[in-house]
């Protein structure tokens, strides 16, 4: 599964979900508020109308409606037309007032005024809430209220709700982004460490925050796990080194005895040949052990004690000169383009061996007729060495693996070498703070070693004596 693909989607989904929930909550809240407020306002309006009607009826205890007419005449002149009143005869005819009812019936009416039948000067449209009631003398009294306040209130709320929704959405998105960013930063911290450890940086650890939260708890466990892995790796390394070291003495003695036996055996006898074969096997084992111990010594950084300024161009020249005839005998063509006067701080023996191992690797693992080219050049601040061959090449998936000890792409293990040559190359590059990679080079293989400028001192600088071994 592609982790890089999964990660952002997860946090994005989380942020979106959070925004949605937030928005839904806000919606429910506003809907409730809206419903409650408008219902309340409507109820107030009803109460208002009921009270007004009751007050008018109370004005007229005699039942002849004269007092009501007087009040209506006065109120009907209200310019603001806040109050709507109508007095109807028993047959429905409007006696006085400022609106008509389409149907005479006791109770609540909602009418549009003016309707098509009653053109008036006031062209504003009013939605009226009207309460009608029959009077004792058979007339009808109706009191209305314009509902524009209600409508305005509803519009106000609707607008308010709209803006608030937008704000809520923005806040939710912002909040979601911030939360997901922070979560991602925390998970990224974990991920970068596990990735680095996976890539071989066993000493990396998760940095814990003082907050001591869930992530720190996970980080703590990851760290414990890494400690354990590192211990196991170190123990494994130590065991193989101990084996190599402890077996050296008995093997050396075995070798001595074999040599004595060889000396004692008659010249040309089969015993002598057999012993010679045993000796060469023992030498093979001893050289593997020596190489293992050598890599371990290089990896712990001890060669740095004897680093000195050296002419890398000359080292390269010597190695190429030594190997040109060897390559020729193996039907390979070895050529070189080496820039002169490249000086670096380093270990001459190790840098020599590094180049020899890389070139020999090319000679031994490519078919006859392969061309091998060694170049050394200054590139920006660094020094770059490239060993390129136009052989069959190394599959992309194997390029990292070949630097591990005992890895041989030739599975039968019949070819030369103990599988430590390139591991040694890697160790030597590392101790010089150089990088070594197998590059993409179609066709063929290309080893690229980059020596950093910190080690690479300029050729114009004064030569330091090679005896200054104990620098650092």
């Amino acid at each position: 599964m592609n982790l890089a693909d999964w990660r952002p989607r997860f946090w994005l989904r989380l942020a979106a979900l959070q925004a949605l929930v937030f928005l839904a909550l806000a919606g429910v809240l506003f809907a409730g508020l809206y419903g409650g407020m408008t219902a309340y306002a409507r109820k107030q309006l009803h109460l208002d109308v009921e009270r007004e009607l009751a007050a008018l009826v109370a004005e007229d205890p005699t039942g002849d409606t004269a007092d009501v007419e007087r009040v209506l005449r006065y109120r009907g002149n209200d310019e603001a037309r806040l109050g709507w009143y109508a007095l109807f005869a028993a047959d429905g005819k409007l006696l006085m007032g400022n609106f008509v009812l389409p149907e005479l019936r006791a109770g609540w009416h909602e009418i549009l005024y003016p309707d098509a039948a009653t053109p008036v000067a006031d062209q504003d449209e009013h939605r009226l809430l009207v309460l009608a009631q029959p009077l004792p003398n058979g007339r009808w009294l109706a009191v209305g209220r314009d509902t524009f306040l209600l409508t305005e209130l509803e519009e106000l709320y609707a607008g308010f709700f709209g803006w608030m929704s937008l704000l809520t959405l923005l806040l939710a998105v912002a909040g979601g982004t911030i939360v997901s960013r922070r979560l991602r930063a925390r998970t990224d911290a974990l991920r970068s460490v596990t990735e680095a450890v996976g890539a071989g940086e066993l000493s990396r650890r998760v940095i814990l925050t003082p907050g001591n939260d869930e992530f720190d708890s996970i980080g703590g466990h990851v760290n414990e796990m890494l400690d354990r892995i590192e211990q196991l790796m170190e123990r494994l390394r130590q065991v193989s080194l101990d084996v190599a070291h402890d077996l050296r003495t008995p093997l050396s003695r075995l070798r001595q005895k074999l040599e004595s036996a060889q000396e004692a055996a008659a010249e040309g006898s089969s015993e002598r040949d057999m012993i010679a074969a045993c000796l060469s096997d023992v030498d093979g084992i001893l050289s593997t052990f020596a190489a293992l111990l050598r890599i371990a010594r290089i990896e712990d950084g001890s060669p740095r004690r004897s680093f000195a300024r050296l002419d890398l161009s000359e080292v390269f020249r010597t190695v190429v000169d030594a190997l040109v005839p060897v390559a020729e005998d193996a039907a390979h063509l070895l050529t070189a383009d080496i820039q002169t006067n490249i000086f670096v701080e380093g270990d001459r023996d190790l840098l020599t061996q590094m180049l020899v191992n890389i070139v020999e690797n090319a000679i031994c693992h490519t078919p006859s007729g392969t061309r091998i080219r060694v170049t050394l050049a200054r590139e920006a601040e660094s020094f770059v060495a490239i060993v390129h061959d136009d052989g069959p090449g190394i599959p992309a998936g194997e390029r990292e693996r070949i630097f591990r000890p005992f890895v041989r792409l030739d599975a039968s293990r019949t070819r030369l070498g103990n599988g430590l040559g390139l591991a040694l190359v890697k160790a030597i590059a590392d101790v010089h703070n150089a990088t070594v990679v197998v590059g993409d080079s179609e066709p063929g293989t290309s080893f690229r070693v980059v020596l950093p400028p910190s080690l690479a001192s300029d050729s114009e600088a004064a030569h330091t004596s090679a005896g200054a071994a104990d620098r650092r």
Partner: protein
Amino acid sequence: MRLLIIEDDQQTAEWLAKGLRQGGHVVDIAADGRDGLYLASTGDYDVAVIDRLLPRLDGLSIVRTLRGAKNALPILVLTALGETAERVEGLNAGADDYLTKPFAFSELIARVQALARRPPLSSIETTLSIGGLTVDLVRRTVVRDGHAIDLQGREFQLLEYLMRNADRVVTRTMLLEHVWEFHFDPKTSVVETHISRLRAKIGRGSAPELIHTIRGMGYSLREPR
């Protein structure tokens, strides 16, 4: 030759002594540093073989003490690890050569012989000559039976080293160290290849072979018998 071996590992010391005695040499063994230093400074030896790690007094201290006392005894130091730092340290202390353990007896005897008969530093030879082959070290020219031979830099160095050690066996490792400064064992046949090229260049028709392969040991440049 009279040889002194300072080595605390009894088995190795006896193995060395046995082999050297078989070769007709007189051998004394010291099992620790103090005894070794005593013998080295009082006895008359041609070469001393000194292990680096010794009880009571380490190998390099013996070398320093001897050199401090202007004792020019040729010294071969044995080391467990052939690291640059250790080698440089050993040579700086005044050792003449070093050998990394474990080693083949032939390697040790070749090195001991090379040390023992080293010409005094004062005699500076400018030409080396053997069996009709003459090497002029100053003009860097090579002549065989009157015919000039054109050698490249490394080939010249290889021939010079073989000439300087004429009649003695030089091992593959000695050649790698002295001619190419390779202090490790290459996988490919660097020495064999160069020797064969050199042979082809200095060989002239029916002229006798000068560079001889000593099976299981190395090479030797000598006049045909």
